[in-house]
């Protein structure tokens, strides 16, 4: 039960000389709703296409539902639902024809789900796919992807271009599908509010490098901000492990850390501040702090074995005061 549904081993892709995905070791636990995050061009779609066998890796491999991505059997493909980026449809077909066409390539088709989703998006079967708005097209694609009730659902930026109401319908549909025993959803997104609602695990890709792969709560608990107040000038900081960002204002310095612990607190307490307070971060603030770090990509979150504890390796042990960002 607990073997991952997706597992990559040094999965790597170059386009020409440019590395798009650095050797990637990612595992997606069964039953999770897995948010795949990263900025534009981080390599998310490239990774997804390699997972599905639509693109060959330059090096490395991946297993999806226990099979090599490059040799997925038709049976295994039938257990995977894939929503490609951009919500493409065959414009000359009616919605009913799209459904017939799609259902012919799957062994299983739940028309109740199809009907439920198209109604959610105010669609009727007689409508021509080519005449639909962006949001309606998204609804149609979603219905076509979900009706076969796939065991593994891979959605590449499903919320792109959707209005808030359509986005909420999308999230409801995702949660509905995830209710089934052992169903897994991997979705890429830029919308952290959606991620916060539905994801339980996240992975963060930054310039092709995996920088986090952990439960969402673990990520939030690991990125913490503290403000130190000083009576006089803010002293020069010693190297502090895990420091992501610092902002100075007169008499004050705000420090954001990855994987904050007691030993760092002890160091902060020695700096002579008259008050130290934590400023809770929203998911978005935590994400931005985590990715806006300059210089070496030095932090890595990883789930460490069965106890689920978080381990972060800090390859570059410190950053010093000269790298602080002045506000």
């Amino acid at each position, binding site marked *: 039960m607990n073997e991952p549904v997706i597992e990559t081993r040094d999965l790597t892709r170059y386009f020409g000389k440019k590395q798009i995905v650095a050797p990637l070791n990612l595992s997606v636990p069964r039953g999770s709703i897995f948010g795949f995050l990263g900025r534009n061009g981080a390599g998310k779609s490239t990774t997804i296409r390699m997972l599905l066998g639509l693109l060959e890796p330059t090096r490395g491999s991946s297993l999806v539902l226990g099979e090599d991505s490059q040799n997925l059997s038709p049976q295994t493909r039938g257990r995977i639902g894939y929503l490609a980026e951009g919500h493409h449809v065959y414009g000359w077909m009616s919605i009913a024809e799209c459904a017939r066409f799609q259902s012919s390539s799957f062994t299983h088709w739940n028309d109740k789900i199809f009907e439920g989703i198209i109604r959610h998006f105010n669609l009727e079967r007689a409508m021509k796919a080519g005449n639909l708005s962006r949001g309606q097209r998204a609804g149609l694609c979603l219905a076509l992807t979900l009706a076969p009730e796939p065991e593994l659902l891979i959605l590449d930026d499903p919320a792109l271009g959707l209005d808030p109401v359509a986005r909420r319908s999308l999230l409801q549909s995702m949660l509905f599908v995830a209710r089934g025993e052992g169903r897994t959803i991997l979705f890429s997104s830029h919308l*952290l509010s959606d991620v*916060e609602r539905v994801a339980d695990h996240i992975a963060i890709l930054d310039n092709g490098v995996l920088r986090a792969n952990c439960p969402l709560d673990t990520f939030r608990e690991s990125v913490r901000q503290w403000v130190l107040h000083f009576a006089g000038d803010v002293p020069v900081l010693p190297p502090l492990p895990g420091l992501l960002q610092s902002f100075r204002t007169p008499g004050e310095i705000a420090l954001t850390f990855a994987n904050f612990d007691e030993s760092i607190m002890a160091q902060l307490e020695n700096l002579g501040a008259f008050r130290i307070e934590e400023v809770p971060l929203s*998911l978005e603030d935590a994400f931005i702090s985590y990715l806006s770090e300059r210089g070496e990509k030095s932090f890595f979150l990883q789930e460490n074995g069965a106890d689920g504890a978080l381990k972060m390796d800090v390859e570059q042990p410190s950053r010093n005061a000269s790298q602080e960002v002045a506000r």
Partner: protein
Amino acid sequence: MALEFRVTTGSNLPIYRQITDQVRRAIATGALLPGEQLPSVRALAEILVVNPNTVARAYADLTQEGVLESQAGKGLFVAQRRQKYSRAERVRRLDSALDAFVHEVLFLDFKAEEIVTVLQRKLAEIEGTSASKK
């Protein structure tokens, strides 16, 4: 059920904390009474459009604190109120909550007496509403 949950994304409080806070507040004000049943994990997750694990975590935390108790096969209910923290722990928690409060209001330039008056009124309000419902 009279109680209405609301969650917002983008808050500096994670969603499970928003849920636990709302349940605690509802109990403090008497909107939820001892013995009242809470919606199931699945039902609340559906209403709020959030991952069921988030609701499950909030309920687990509340159960662990003794705020809720589960009755096998029936679901989760508001527990009879009892204090599970030691005196020292309660003092520590009061102190840290007050620290946060004091830092927050320090910059608003109220006199100490004004702050105390408002605080007393608020506490009286909460006691009033929970007493009137019981």
